[in-house]
């Protein structure tokens, strides 16, 4: 279970770790948006350099990022195959009936791989360096204006942070129950599809019972400690932008300018 990197937070004290979570969310979002406009080698090169810089600033081993990409390699591969074989254009390099490989198809495929990897890495950096609870409070702050439209933003953010908090707990619990049932002779990895589907019942029932119990316990614990509604709570951590946030904003603007110039020139 430890091999899943996407969505995992790794504590640290790097420059990126210390940024305000709102900055990280906004900049990640902007970066991904900008990336959608990339259409030439030059633009991808700038975007890659920018990302490399950010990765360097996180002070995390490169191996970790590779671990993050590995589980979705097959998805990338699938998209690449679609791109290679089903893109129209000239010149055609190879053809068999309706399947053909064209030069634009090949180039597109490479672009898609780069874009995929860049987007995944940038979002991985965001979740890797930001505790889930900070992400939740950042979202609450960013979506604040929606409160005027009667959207229960505070409650939604609270639900999100509780849900995120429970993920590792439930994974742990799943492992424990699997161990217990394995000790009673259940095999989760052998047998036909029906046998495997049946094997899930002794796993899911205790998992749900336990999760509901935990949810009740948590609700009680919150009420006992005076929780009424999410709207009127003051905060433990007050979000504030610092110099580093302005600097990173500035870096992003710089990146956008360089990117646009290259984009316009078509390099």
């Amino acid at each position, binding site marked *: 279970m430890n091999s899943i990197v996407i969505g995992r937070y790794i504590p640290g004290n790097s420059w990126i770790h210390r940024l305000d979570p709102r900055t990280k969310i906004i900049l990640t979002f902007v970066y991904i948006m900008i990336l959608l406009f990339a259409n030439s080698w030059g633009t991808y090169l700038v975007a890659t350099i920018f990302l490399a810089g950010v990765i360097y600033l996180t002070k995390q081993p490169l191996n970790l990022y590779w671990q993050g990409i590995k589980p979705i390699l097959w998805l990338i591969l699938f998209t690449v195959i679609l791109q290679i074989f089903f893109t129209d254009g000239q010149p055609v390099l190879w053809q068999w009936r309706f399947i053909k490989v064209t030069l634009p198809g090949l180039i597109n495929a490479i672009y898609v791989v780069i874009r995929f990897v860049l987007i995944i890495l940038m979002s991985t950096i965001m979740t890797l360096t930001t505790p889930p609870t900070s992400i939740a409070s950042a979202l609450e702050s960013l979506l604040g204006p929606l409160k005027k439209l009667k959207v229960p933003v505070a409650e939604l953010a609270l639900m999100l942070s509780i849900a995120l908090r429970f993920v590792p707990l439930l994974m742990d619990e799943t492992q424990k129950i699997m161990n217990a049932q394995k*000790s*009673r002779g259940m095999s989760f990895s052998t047998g036909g599809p029906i046998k495997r589907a049946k094997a899930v019942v002794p796993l899911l029932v*205790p998992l749900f019972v336990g999760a509901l119990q935990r949810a009740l316990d948590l609700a009680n614990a919150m009420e006992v400690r005076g929780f009424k509604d999410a709207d009127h709570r003051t905060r433990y951590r007050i979000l504030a932008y610092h110099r580093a946030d302005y600097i990173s904003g500035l870096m992003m603007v710089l990146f956008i300018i360089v990117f646009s110039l290259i984009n316009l020139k078509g390099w």
Partner: protein
Amino acid sequence: MAITFEQVNFSYGQGSLSQPILKDISTTIPSGKITAIIGQTGSGKSTLVQHINGLLKPTNGKVIINDFELTSQTKEKQLVALRAQVGMVFQFPESQLFANTVLEDVMYGSLNFGQDHLAAKEAAQAALTMVGLPSQHWDKSPFALSGGQMRRVAIAGTLALNPPIIVLDEPAAGLDPLGQAELVKLMLNLKKQDKTVVLISHQMDQVMTVADWTLVMHQGQVIAAETPTTLFNRPLSWFKKVHLDLPTAGQFAQQLMAQGWQFKERPLTLEQLAQAINQEVTIHE
């Protein structure tokens, strides 16, 4: 059915991220006896016992369970045979219950190992009788029972498989005194049936009462393997160092000695304590 650990190392993760949990463990758990594993939280007790039924495989070294050799190379398919030999009751085992009725839940393991329905049912009934759950509860949903009763059902689920080795990971945690006493009776009963019982426990009184052999774990190593009597006669400073306590009788005797009492031997059970006090008083009279 002795269990032998030969230079067992175990770590989570790989490469630079790896964390050693067990360090070079070589020891034997005697057959047909009750062995207690003690040590503070995080010392590796649960990790160690999960090597006995192959939930974990040693990173280096091997574990020999009767004639089964468990190494890092052992395949998942071979492990089913091992799990029929080793029953394991986890901490808070009631969290593994899932079936519609108590009886069905206890039968689950036997059916997994390919017993026919009738034999499984008989084994389940025998196991439920052994843990002392009255038959009026057998057709109820396990979720309708009290916590202590659920614990019994879960333990019965393991006993029904009739494995020669039974591992219990803190089975008494959260039970009331009566439940704990019954658990002790159950373990002694299993020993009478010539089963090898491995018990993880934080209760030194329980260890002193039931165990024939103790393993003390500290920071991933076995630092003592001896009888409980030998163990609890070690100097007090040693217990402080490894964050363990004497049984209640021993602690009480320490308090008396602080008041000027003298004992020839350190009393370890309440019975020994009473005798020792009686002797002291008679001498003074």
